[in-house]
């Protein structure tokens, strides 16, 4: 078995036993990155830095001072500011941006000894569900439909992160999730991804899209590996006013798959019209696995589910239009020509932003503009309160909720590009929990009729990542998902 096929937990064990060095582990991943560069998952590779960090890690370990992630090579979504390393958010606007500071989440990973392999491609400013909006070209999913050469999307917005971890180009990666941007790509690429409760991970130094929704989280190939990573990423940060000052549990202890006596909710309203039979099949299968493991399956109601997407597409663009006002061509980012200051602003932003980002800024500007604020923004925040209340009431009857992660498997590059709403529907199952700030994980559950991975989503109560990990481990144990992407078979 090659070093890149190890789980993160196994790699830590081998490093501890000195069966492998951090330098060897890092070199193996750098080679894999070079082999699969055509996936376009990495925007920047940092091999020299990675090897330097790996050598330092080996030295620490030799002195008995290894941290919880010491020597583990990771990829970082290009939304996290990394000091001295280009950070573009997938946008032309930030093509030459080199942060002079480090995001809290990545600083936490380096504190614990992790090694940075490079920065990962993504939808521009995290706005997209296919990685097609990146200014630096689409990312390819390492999976293919059997017998087909059609290139598939990895999902988005954290598409580079999911593709890199699935293709063994990192043991794990960071992502961010605003409406599904960790969970949907994890499902499309056959790996695990968790968005923790809003407030668990600091947002400081992570380029903002929609601040009341943005939350960082990890990708890895097993539930336990994501638990290890999330523990390092989480924690109180006084620099983020919405960071929550709560102890960070050792979630690895929850990855034992014991769900006996747990009540698992199945929301009636998630059986949407036209849901593919394979999605329903894998969902029913997941419920059966949990029943077999001793959980009780209960039907629950989330009556405002159908309004979650339109609510999201008021709230997120409104916040995006405010957050992205900072890109003015003066302080940082792309600068256009202009005889007056206003012209300079307008040209800088017209040239620097892509079509989807401009569309969302303009929708946000409109719904916040005088005369429309109450009709759109206030209304959406009221519906959002009702969506959150639906979950509060549902959690009186259950301990966790099981749903499909996405309404389909990965689609081909170029599909669903004509109609923004068709693209938005990818997030129909992930957006409601984002609006309510709840933790959610996607776990690979099996292959669909087209031979591509399908994911199941587990949602938990606020700050009950423990419950989420317990159920996720039970699904992982029962699913026994060992299929590998087509790319790795060749």
């Amino acid at each position, binding site marked *: 078995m090659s070093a890149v096929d190890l789980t993160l937990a196994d790699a830590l064990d081998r490093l501890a036993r000195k069966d492998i060095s951090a330098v060897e582990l890092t070199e193996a991943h750098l080679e894999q990155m070079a082999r699969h560069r055509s996936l376009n998952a990495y925007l920047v590779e940092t091999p020299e830095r990675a090897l330097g960090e790996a050598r330092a890690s080996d030295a620490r370990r030799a002195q008995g001072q290894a941290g919880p992630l010491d020597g583990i090579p990771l990829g970082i979504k290009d939304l996290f500011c990394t000091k001295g390393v280009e950070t573009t958010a997938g946008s032309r606007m930030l093509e030459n941006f080199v942060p002079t500071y480090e995001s809290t989440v990545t600083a936490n990973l380096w504190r614990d000894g992790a090694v940075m392999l490079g920065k990962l491609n993504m939808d521009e400013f995290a706005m997209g569900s296919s990685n097609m909006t990146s200014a630096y070209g689409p990312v390819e999913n390492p999976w293919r439909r059997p017998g087909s050469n059609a290139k598939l999307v990895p999902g988005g917005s954290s598409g580079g992160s999911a593709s890199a971890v699935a293709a063994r180009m990192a043991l794990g990666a960071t992502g961010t999730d605003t409406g599904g941007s960790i969970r949907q790509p994890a499902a499309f690429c056959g790996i695990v991804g968790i968005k923790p409760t809003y407030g668990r991970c600091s947002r400081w130094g992570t380029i903002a899209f929609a601040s009341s929704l943005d939350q960082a989280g990890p990708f890895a190939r097993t539930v336990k590996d994501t638990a290890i990573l999330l523990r390092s990423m989480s924690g109180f940060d006084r620099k983020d006013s919405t960071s929550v000052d709560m102890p960070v549990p050792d979630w690895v202890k929850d990855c034992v798959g014991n769900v006996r006596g747990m009540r698992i909710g199945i929301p009636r309203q998630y059986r949407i019209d036209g849901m593919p039979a394979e999605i329903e099949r894998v969902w029913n299968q997941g419920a059966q696995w949990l029943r077999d493991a001793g959980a009780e399956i209960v039907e629950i109601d989330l009556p405002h589910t159908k*309004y979650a997407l339109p609510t999201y597409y008021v709230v997120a663009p409104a916040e995006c239009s405010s957050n992205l006002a900072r890109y003015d061509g003066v302080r940082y980012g792309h600068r256009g020509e202009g005889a007056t200051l206003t012209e300079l602003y*307008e040209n800088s932003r017209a040239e620097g932003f892509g079509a989807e980002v401009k569309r969302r800024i303009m929708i946000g500007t409109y719904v916040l503009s005088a005369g429309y604020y109450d009709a759109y923004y206030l209304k959406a925040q009221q519906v959002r309160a009702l969506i959150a209340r639906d979950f509060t009431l549902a959690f009186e009857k259950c301990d966790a909720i099981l749903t499909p992660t996405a309404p389909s498997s990965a689609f081909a590059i170029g599909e669903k590009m004509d109609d923004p709403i068709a693209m938005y529907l990818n997030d129909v199952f992930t957006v409601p929990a984002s609006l309510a700030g709840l933790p959610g994980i996607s776990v690979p559950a099996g292959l669909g009729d087209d031979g591509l991975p399908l994911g199941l989503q587990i949602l938990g109560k606020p700050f009950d990542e423990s419950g989420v990990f317990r159920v996720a481990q039970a699904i992982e144990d029962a699913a026994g998902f060992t299929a590998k992407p087509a790319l790795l078979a060749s």
Partner: protein
Amino acid sequence: MSLDTSTVAKIARLARIRVGADEQTHLAQELNHVLGWIEQLGEVDTKGVEPMTSVAPMTQRLRPDVVVLENTREDVLANAPESVAGFYVVPKVVE
């Protein structure tokens, strides 16, 4: 309600994004398509519902009111497209 090209031009001006006259019709169609879909929120009875203002119920944290000197001017200007003598450079804004 339906956005016309003059409203698109107004939104573009508020958002400080240059939108050419030739793009306005297409953008109006796109924005109308999305806004039309959003209109379904009107079906929801929200009478008396407090709008959500905070995802997690929390009170604002206060920091001690002390002066902190952080000499970060070079860091702040490091990514400026144009700067001179410790200042950002912009086109002339006063006559």
